[in-house]
């Protein structure tokens, strides 16, 4: 017994910082996810010519909290014929995998729980892929046809698109020469150019594959509400359902972070090596000030006193963040924190843009059919990504031969990308030609 206590103490002494960080993430992430959902609803409303949530708090700013409370106090329904143990386990698995993946991410150079892990990005990708068990087992345990079909679709989809995503990651890793997240970003700093520009085709492939992996529209077949009611989530309610929801949005954040780290320069500002563009550093505080001023302007229009106060508080928060962002540039005492603070901003900013793109697609595009999705994955994305790895590899060899660095590497990689594009168009053209024949007797759905 004493030994165990001693070991625990030792463990805590050695790892207290990541432990605290982990607890903070587990505590704060649901809130963040709640607000991501609110932002999504607001963006959706904006695109659909309506207002979205407006009732709870000014402009619906407290809606996520109301939703969370509602979900927590809802009745917890377990279907009679469900496999109780698995039914209980499945949502937990989903969330656990998603949250664990966050541990490997680096939000700016200063904020990373699992620091300097040798396998960095592989850890994130591998662990987040485990969330699929939550979906598959949940769908099976519900003992419902809709759930089962949703689960089957989900696993088939994930296995298919994982390959393409992995190949796209390989392209980025070729440039970085390391799996370690800090080294990857450092490599982009050394090159002075984002890998997304060096390998646009890989970035595109990862973009598509990541949408498919997170089950977002237009690849949201596992939960296609018009076909499968809610897919694997059909039988889940209340808290369990919200766990799935949490996992889905956390996964979105994870894939966006991976893409940001590998293709969009992580926490680096645009053009990190170009000194005369340093005024870009003032963009973050200015943006926050802008949002704050907007909130101030909207304050008198709020109908109720409480809402006015709340709006003022939001404005104050924005100004405070702006202050924090501007401090490292003006106050010499906090100068060492410059990279950490601004890096965190840029990282979150890029992740937000990536997620915004996800949402934009969701409200614009119809949904793929399952066989079309599979054909897209196997006949288009996977060949394209494999060819792209080959081409990028050749481009890199040529680049090393001519001692090309940074932006001049584009000389070799852009022809590679153009060739890849031509091949992509070629594949698409042949696909289209063969489509009419297949339509009458479409291939096996799980082929």
């Amino acid at each position, binding site marked *: 017994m004493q030994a165990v206590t001693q070991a625990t103490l030792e463990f805590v002494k050695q790892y207290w910082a990541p432990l605290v960080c982990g607890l903070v993430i587990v505590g704060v992430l649901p809130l963040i996810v709640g607000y991501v959902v609110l932002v999504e609803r607001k963006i*959706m409303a904006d*695109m*659909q*010519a*309506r207002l979205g949530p407006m009732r709870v708090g000014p402009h619906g700013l407290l809606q996520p909290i109301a939703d969370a409370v509602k979900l927590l106090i809802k009745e917890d329904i377990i279907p009679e014929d469900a496999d109780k143990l698995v039914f209980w386990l499945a949502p937990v698995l989903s969330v656990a995998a998603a949250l664990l993946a966050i541990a490997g991410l680096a939000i700016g150079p200063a904020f990373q729980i699992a620091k300097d892990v040798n396998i960095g990005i592989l850890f994130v990708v591998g662990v987040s892929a485990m969330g699929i068990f939550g979906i598959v087992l949940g769908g099976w345990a519900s003992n419902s*046809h*809709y759930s089962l*079909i949703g689960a089957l679709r989900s696993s088939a989809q994930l296995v298919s698109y994982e390959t393409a995503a992995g190949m796209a990651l390989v392209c980025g890793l070729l440039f970085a020469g390391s799996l370690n997240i800090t080294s990857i970003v450092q490599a982009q700093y050394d090159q002075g150019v984002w890998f997304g520009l060096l390998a646009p085709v890989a970035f595109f492939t990862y973009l598509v594959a990541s949408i498919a992996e997170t089950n977002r*529209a*237009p690849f*949201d*077949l596992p939960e*296609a*509400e*018009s*076909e*499968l*009611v809610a897919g694997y989530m059909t039988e889940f309610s209340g808290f369990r359902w919200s766990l799935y929801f949490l996992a889905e949005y956390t996964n979105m954040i994870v894939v966006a972070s991976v893409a940001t780290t590998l293709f969009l320069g992580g926490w680096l500002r645009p053009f990190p090596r170009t000194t005369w563009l340093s005024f870009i550093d003032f963009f973050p505080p200015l943006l926050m000030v802008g949002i704050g001023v907007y909130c101030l302007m909207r304050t008198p229009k709020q109908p109720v006193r409480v809402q006015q106060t709340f709006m003022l508080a939001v404005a104050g928060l924005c100004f405070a963040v702006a202050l924090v962002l501007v401090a490292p540039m003006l106050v010499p005492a906090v100068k060492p924190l410059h990279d950490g603070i601004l890096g965190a901003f840029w990282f979150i900013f890029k992740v937000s843009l990536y997620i915004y793109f996800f949402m934009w697609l*969701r*409200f*614009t*595009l*119809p*949904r*793929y*059919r*399952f*066989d*079309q999705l599979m054909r897209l994955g196997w006949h288009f994305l996977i060949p394209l990504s494999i060819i792209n790895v080959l081409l990028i590899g050749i481009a890199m060899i040529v680049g090393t031969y001519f001692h090309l660095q940074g932006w001049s590497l584009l000389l070799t990689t852009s022809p590679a990308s153009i060739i890849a594009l031509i091949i992509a168009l070629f594949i698409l053209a042949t696909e289209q030609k063969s*489509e*009419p024949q297949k*339509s*009458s*007797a*479409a291939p*096996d*759905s*799980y082929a």
Partner: protein
Amino acid sequence: MAMDTTTDSRDKQQTLLGADELVLNMGPQHPSTHGVLRVKLKLDGERVIGSECMIGYLHRGVEKIAEHRTYQQFAPYVDRMDYVAAVSNGLGYCEAIEKLLMVEAPPRAKVIRTILTELQRIASHLLWLGTHALDIGALTPLFYCFREREEILKIFEKYCGARLTTHAFRIGGLQYDAYDTLEKDVERFCKAFEPRIKDYEDLLTQNRIWLGRTKGVGILTAADAIALGATGPVLRASGVKWDIRKAMPYAAYDQYKFEIPVGSTGDTYDRYMVRMEEMRQSRLICLQAIENIPTGPILAKVGKVLKPPPGEVYHAIEAPKGELGYYVISDGTVQPYRVRIRPPSFVNLQAFDKMARGHLVADVVAIIGTLDIVLGEVDR
């Protein structure tokens, strides 16, 4: 059950693996069965190898009710069949009874009826477009469609006070004359509508995913469509140029110029294109009609108590969803002896099994959407 012989060898293989065919009960509570349609699907994996539509969940006995109401009393009931196209339902009923009474509505009434009915066609098609796109996964068109539909419903509201179940017409003409700014309102709507339709087409028509989801899905050949009694856009998309507005003109349709759009293959995409074009044509009819609304009375001379002479009559109009027919038998009393309604949705739904076989579950949803059924009308 010709299907069974072809799938026999396959079935055996499936049993060896132990994976049986799945019977999936879609509906009556399902997000995309457009109300309370229940479809029993026999699935092989996700492929449909057989289907059965089960209806009746919204049965209210409308036809039986008619036998216990006077002719005027029954008129509001027909609004509740196809509740997204109440004006068209009302028009068909009123014209059938007028035929039975051998009276004719005055010209002014006829033109206003035409305007409102065509607006209703646009509204009905808009609702169809929104929900159909939503079924296929495009969330946004629904809200745009509702925005435009709202304008039309506002015109109805200004005209008769009701938005959905309008009861806009009376037997023999109209109860209310057109309000002062009706022409202006309709014109404003029609002007604004043209670019809006283009917006929807931008979102969908050339979209790769939309094409993939609709082209070649749910093909109904012209012969099949006629054999199954399909009418309306479903029939026209198969390439049959049949529109009662042209074939047997009623109301004021003989005065206006318009095209009948037809498809070629009879797949879901063709039906989509046909309905989109129909909205444009309806808009043109409205624009033509408001240019010259004749003055004069709005109600023909019909008594307060309607006692049609004994006899029977069948009158059909081109409702947004197809041929809407009323077969009315009078025995000379104030109540009809029998009213039989031929609802387009009910008959079009017959084609479902033919269209769905061999497709995937996702296509079933698209096919239900493309048939544009309203369960209030199917079940009556």
